[in-house]
């Protein structure tokens, strides 16, 4: 037996023993996700237990080094873990901007002290992070951000406003882009800083979305003190790190093009909605559109796989993250439009516990943000045109 097969056997056995039964089904709504953090209300003992057990093994961040609490898994082992989790429809133990975004940036650019301080609590789901990038005047043109950080010797004093900060009202810490030097080219005076949301001067105000939910906020920074040792990388050199982090964010958002473990496929859901006739989806026009989507999604999934394989063998074009973000999010939007079509008016029922398609209307509306958050579709197309095709 190869090492990988042994690992698979062991992982399977461990999951069998440690994944609580109630954690072995797809999320019924976004509310089932575990986000961790100081103030998180676990929905059940099982949810807490599942997080603790996975965190103990470092499997909330399977590919991070063990010295910072991660799982230390190789890429292949990581893939096996995900496969084994999906085999029993195990829920992700932790949703975390710490793991998806700031963690990888600290790992790559942060000081040893920052790694020691921040990574283990992220793995354990003890500290929940939010992303303070966008400002009212700086969305797509992120480098135009104005929030300013004044040098006060051993610390900065930060003033400004962030917007669209997802879960700012629930987060414990923020990673934020601030202007530390207003006198140079806009990309060259930006720093990436970390601070506790309980620091005096930080306040948030929720924004209600088209889905009726309020997952993000305006964040006001009023004379906020940020210690200098909480700068990731060098002062004024935050733009490179910000972009690195955006690449991570993009691949994560782009992943929405994939059908998550245990989630029913679009085709299965369409069959639920419309039914089969002679083995074919009863609505032939819808069948064509779903088939077209399925083909495109195969192309997307295989391209994500190829990009990973090429990166590993040192081949291929960089910047594929822009393409995957573009393709994956547009695919996810199409998926939800087709679901709305498949369930018809029943799928648009806005409230109630026994809706045939559950919270589909809210989820459908949420997907509209996929091609905006983390850099819009148009910005991704600009990146491809300029960086890859050399058009200008």
């Amino acid at each position, binding site marked *: 037996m190869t090492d990988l097969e042994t690992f698979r056997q062991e992982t399977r056995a461990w999951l069998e023993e440690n994944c609580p039964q109630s954690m072995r089904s797809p999320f019924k709504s976004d509310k089932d996700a575990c986000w961790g953090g100081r103030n998180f209300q676990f929905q059940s003992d099982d949810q807490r237990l599942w997080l603790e057990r996975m965190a103990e093994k470092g499997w909330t961040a399977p590919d991070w080094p063990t010295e910072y609490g991660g799982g230390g898994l190789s890429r*292949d082992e990581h*893939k096996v873990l995900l496969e084994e989790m999906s085999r029993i429809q195990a829920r992700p133990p932790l949703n975390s901007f710490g793991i998806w975004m700031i963690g990888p940036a600290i790992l790559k650019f942060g000081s040893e002290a920052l790694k020691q301080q921040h990574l283990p609590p992220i793995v354990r789901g003890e500290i929940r992070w939010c992303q303070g990038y966008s400002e009212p005047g700086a969305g797509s043109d992120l480098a135009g951000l104005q929030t300013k950080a004044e040098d006060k010797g051993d610390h900065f004093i930060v003033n400004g406003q962030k917007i669209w900060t997802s879960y700012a009202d629930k987060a414990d810490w923020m990673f934020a882009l601030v202007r530390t030097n207003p006198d140079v080219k806009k990309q060259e005076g930006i720093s990436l800083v970390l601070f506790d949301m309980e620091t005096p001067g930080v306040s948030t105000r929720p924004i209600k979305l088209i889905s009726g939910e309020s997952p993000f906020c305006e964040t006001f920074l009023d004379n906020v003190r940020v210690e200098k040792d909480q700068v990731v990388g060098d002062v004024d050199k935050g733009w490179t790190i910000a972009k690195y982090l955006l690449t991570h964010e993009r691949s994560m958002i782009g992943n929405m093009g994939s059908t998550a473990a245990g989630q029913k*496929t679009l*085709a299965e859901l*369409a*069959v639920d909605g419309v039914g*089969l006739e002679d*083995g*074919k*989806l009863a609505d032939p026009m819808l*069948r*064509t559109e*779903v*088939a*077209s989507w*399925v*083909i*495109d999604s*195969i*192309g*997307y999934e*295989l*391209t994500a*796989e*190829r990009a990973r*394989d*090429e990166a*590993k*063998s040192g*081949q*291929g074009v960089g910047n*594929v993250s822009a*393409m995957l973000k*573009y*393709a994956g999010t547009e695919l996810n939007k199409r998926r939800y439009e087709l679901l709305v079509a498949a369930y018809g008016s029943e799928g648009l029922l806005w409230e109630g516990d026994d809706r045939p398609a559950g919270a589909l209307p809210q989820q459908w509306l949420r997907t509209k943000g996929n091609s905006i958050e983390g850099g819009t579709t*148009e910005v*991704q*197309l*600009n990146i*491809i*045109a*300029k960086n*890859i*095709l*050399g*058009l*200008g």
Partner: protein
Amino acid sequence: MQKLVLTEEQQMLKDAARGLFSEQAPVSQLRKLRDEKDALGYVPEFWNQAVELGLAGTLIPESHGGSEFGHVGMGQVMEEGGRTLAASPLFASGVLGACALMLAGNDSQKDILKGIADGSHLVALAIDEAGRHQPFRVATKAEVQGEGFVLNGRKTFVVDGHIANTLIVSARTSGGERDESGITLFLVDPKAEGVSVERTTFPDGRNYAKVTLENVAVSADAVLGNKDQAASPLQKLLDIGSAHLAAELLGLSSEAFDRAVAYMKERKQFGVYISSFQALQHRAAHMWSELEQLKSMVLKAFMALDANDDQASMLASAAKAKASQVAELVTNEGVQLHGGMGMTDEFDIGLFMKRARPVQLMLGDFRYHADRVASFKGF
């Protein structure tokens, strides 16, 4: 877990093929064949060089004179051939002919493989009977006569039919016109009495034939595979063919795209290069994304075919479906981005569009293959 990247050998084959096609079969060669209404429809000197490089035997076992390099390898050759619109019997003979014999042939029939690999023997597959691909709708009849059979019917869209030394013909030996069972494959000598092969012309300037069979007598040895049971090997053959056509579409679309992008960087209007217009940049970026995704699908389909993966048929159909869509998009946009120049015969860009459409239709277009993917996925 096989990685979705080429091995070093496969990359070397791809590079060698690219060198050969770009030097010995550039687009100008196809143009010349077309303009001169060349009787063969390909340049024998070029074909000999391709054979010398081993391309015709890429799929054929070493025991039969080939290099057994697999579908991923042959796929690279097909893709590169697509880039220069190279005219040759490679697909008809080296892919369809060779695989038909390998899938269904008996030992003595497999002797033909050697001739395919050394380029001396050309094979063509005669399946379709109507404009749209319906491989299991077979009206051509084969009736038992003495020890053998007598064939009657008409075939159309037979790739490289007029130069073939052997035709592989599907005919009905039992059942109704739409039944999957009751179909048999026959090896037919185009020179046999009652066979007439008429070359037809298409926008791409390549070779297709109409084949008429009138009381054509063949011996029992002419049956390829089992009587009445051609459906299964035929389907496998069509999966393989579809994947290779997807590779050709990938190659020709990539080239059309590269040319359009190059044109955008040299054409000035309003005092600037048209590449500076965002309306065009986004369309180019979209096409590039589509091409990258097609590339992944084509590669995966070949790997699945080589591995005899049970997803191979589905992946081949998905690849051909996507390739047909992407080729339509990119060749249309290629002409559009060239403005008036795109409409001229003098510019090559139109040739890519004119090649794309027949290849899209060949062995089933987007609609045909999307329908199959849906069936594979249970809806």
